């Protein structure tokens, strides 16, 4: 039985209202926030049951679970916001196991004083992302912290999914000779974020690439069930993720710089700031490592999907006791592509 809005004397003042401590205290104010914002927009039967948990049947197969905390700033950026980012991020983590995502949960930590209008904007964006993906947000939590103790809003999302039989995707399965593929251009998200941040002002036409990749992954797994590794190169960029995989698998890698897709605007922005696109975050791309015989087929499948239109084979896995990721530069010489050191900061030198 659904709960009617008349339960609360006045509707939430979304336009000019702000979060206060009562919204997290478990009482009527919190119930109203949940009802009028979260339940209304996430809009699914499980959530409408108004329990503290969601109970559901799952199809046969191995269960996959993943969780992410989102603490980004700014909250809104070209091509997305913390809401859509959190939904896509968790869907992708589940998908990187080769799994089909089923359900999402989301926990909100809200800072006292946070505008309700911004919260609604974020929730609407999350709901739209979840709907596009076909994966509902079925349970959640809300807490409020005092002014100064949060960055507006922190969101934690958890997702569950099912891995079909015969699929065993893991970071330690890269083998010498395997092909390394990337699903599209790198560095878009990080540059989009930097272009919105206060101190770095420049106009680009770059939008974040934030997107849910599970449907792309589903078609890849269907074509080649024995994909060895899948990972999305988020923080730390392509370079860091490749180093992680090399370490996990105990191998090295040999990349070709000219094969790595980079948008001209991203390239130019990086030149201006002294940054390297290899280390910049992506939120809608994946790395795939597979047996050499499967590379062309996977490439074709990826390119047939709008989210993989610029997919490319960028290198191969090699034997290397030291685990270096090396790259043949476009200039003709060779260099190491190391882990990211600290945070990549714009430089003048």
């Amino acid at each position, binding site marked *: 039985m659904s709960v009617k809005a008349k339960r609360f004397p006045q509707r939430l003042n979304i336009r000019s209202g702000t979060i206060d401590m009562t919204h997290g205290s478990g009482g009527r104010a919190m119930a109203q926030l949940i009802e009028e914002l979260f339940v209304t927009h996430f809009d699914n039967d499980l959530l409408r049951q108004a329990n503290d948990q969601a109970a559901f049947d799952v199809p046969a197969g191995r269960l996959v679970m993943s969780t992410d905390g989102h603490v980004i700033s700014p909250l809104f950026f070209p091509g997305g916001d913390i809401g859509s980012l959190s939904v896509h991020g968790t869907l992708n983590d589940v998908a990187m196991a080769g799994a089909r995502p089923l359900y999402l949960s989301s926990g909100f930590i809200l800072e006292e004083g946070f505008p309700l209008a911004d919260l609604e904007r974020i929730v609407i964006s999350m709901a739209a992302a979840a709907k596009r993906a076909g994966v509902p947000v079925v349970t959640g939590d809300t807490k409020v912290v005092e002014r100064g103790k949060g960055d507006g809003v922190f969101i934690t999302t958890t997702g569950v999914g099912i891995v079909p039989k015969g699929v065993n995707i893991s970071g330690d399965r890269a083998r010498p000779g395997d092909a390394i593929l990337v699903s599209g251009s790198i560095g878009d998200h990080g540059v989009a974020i930097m272009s919105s941040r206060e*101190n770095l002002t420049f106009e680009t036409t770059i939008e974040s690439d934030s997107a849910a990749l599970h449907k792309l992954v589903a078609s890849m797994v269907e074509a080649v069930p024995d994909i060895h590794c899948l990972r999305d190169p988020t923080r730390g960029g392509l370079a860091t993720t490749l180093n992680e995989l090399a370490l996990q698998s105990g191998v090295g890698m040999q990349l070709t710089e000219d094969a790595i897709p980079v948008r001209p605007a991203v390239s130019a922005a990086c*030149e201006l700031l002294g940054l390297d696109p290899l280390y910049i975050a992506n939120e809608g791309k994946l790395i795939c490592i597979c047996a050499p015989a499967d590379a062309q087929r996977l490439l074709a499948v990826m390119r047939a999907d709008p989210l993989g239109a610029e997919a490319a084979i960028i290198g191969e896995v090699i034997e290397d006791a030291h685990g270096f990721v090396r790259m043949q530069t476009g*200039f*003709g010489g060779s*260099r190491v592509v*190391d882990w990211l050191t600290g945070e990549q900061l714009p430089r*003048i*030198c």
Partner: protein
Amino acid sequence: MKYVDEFRRQDLAKKVSRAIHNEVDRGRRYNLMEFCGGHTHAIFRYGVQDLMPDNVRFVHGPGCPVCVLPVGRIDNAIQLAQQHDVILCTYGDMLRVPGSGRKSLLKIKAEGADVRMVYSTQDALKIARDNPGREVVFFAIGFETTTPPTAVAIRQAQAEGLKNFSVFCNHVLTPAAIQNILESPEVREIGSVLIDGFFGPSHVSSVIGSQPYEFFAEEFQRPVVIAGFEPLDVMQSALMLIRQLNEGRHDVENEYTRVVSRDGNRKAKALVAEVFELRRSFEWRGLGLVPYSALRIKSAYAGFDTEKRFDVPAIQASDVKGCECPSILRGVKKPTDCKLFGTVCTPENPMGSCMVSSEGACAAYWTYGRFRDPTTAREASA
């Protein structure tokens, strides 16, 4: 990107590489020092060494203003941000440089100090305008390329009558540093490390011109080629140095003619001369005290001098024991000669100046070149 992409072409790289291979004298070594950190970066990032013959060695010099800033001055910047409640504006490069006690601007920012990264002195001026009730200090670093923008900001602050803006001046001078290296005992001694020729810095030269290097070429009898920033520029300049050495010449040549002239940028030089004057001496990390190597703000602009507005004590801080930065900065030792390299000292946890900046010799070698010498390879810390 015009004037960028063409200077990275692989086909042209092959041509210049072939020319170098054909013209080197197999019976000798060529030790070519690139003074400028930007050149170090280009060499490693594009793998230029792979296209050079074995008997041509790049020696990495101290041309990285982040690397040579003494620890004491970083401590001063940290103090300013913490004790005086100022808004400390800084270029990104300085944020992670460790001062004494493992503190850095980034660390104290995390602890609540108002440290703000800026891309330009114009950003710092805007912050001062937007926050009239707070003191704004701009942490000025850099060689002659970066000094004119600071001069513009100080003059603009004066014209606007800004009461809350000042500059903590740490601008240093390239020719003085080159002289210091060339005069150091190891370099002067015969049989010790020799630097046969120099790549002149690209963008410092665009401001000061090629003329100041004529003194070095003459006095120390070594060729100088002002080299552009891109990898093709570096290779062509190497070829020009090799030719000079083969012919026994020691002239100043300019490869970067598209930007550098003999006189440089007169307008920028005049602005700098108006606002700044020479300090008698200044301590350089790794090189010690170097006379007439740094600038301070003239008394006419004392109102914008952080060292006049606040108490900025001279702090004597020393480098970590075992750190070989002084020798590495002079090109006397390689990063792999230092016991701390790759063990205690990594980019994640830098001990000395050469590891701190991405252009320091040690950082560049670690990040890009480590795989060439597997005996020094270490497990990367995840």
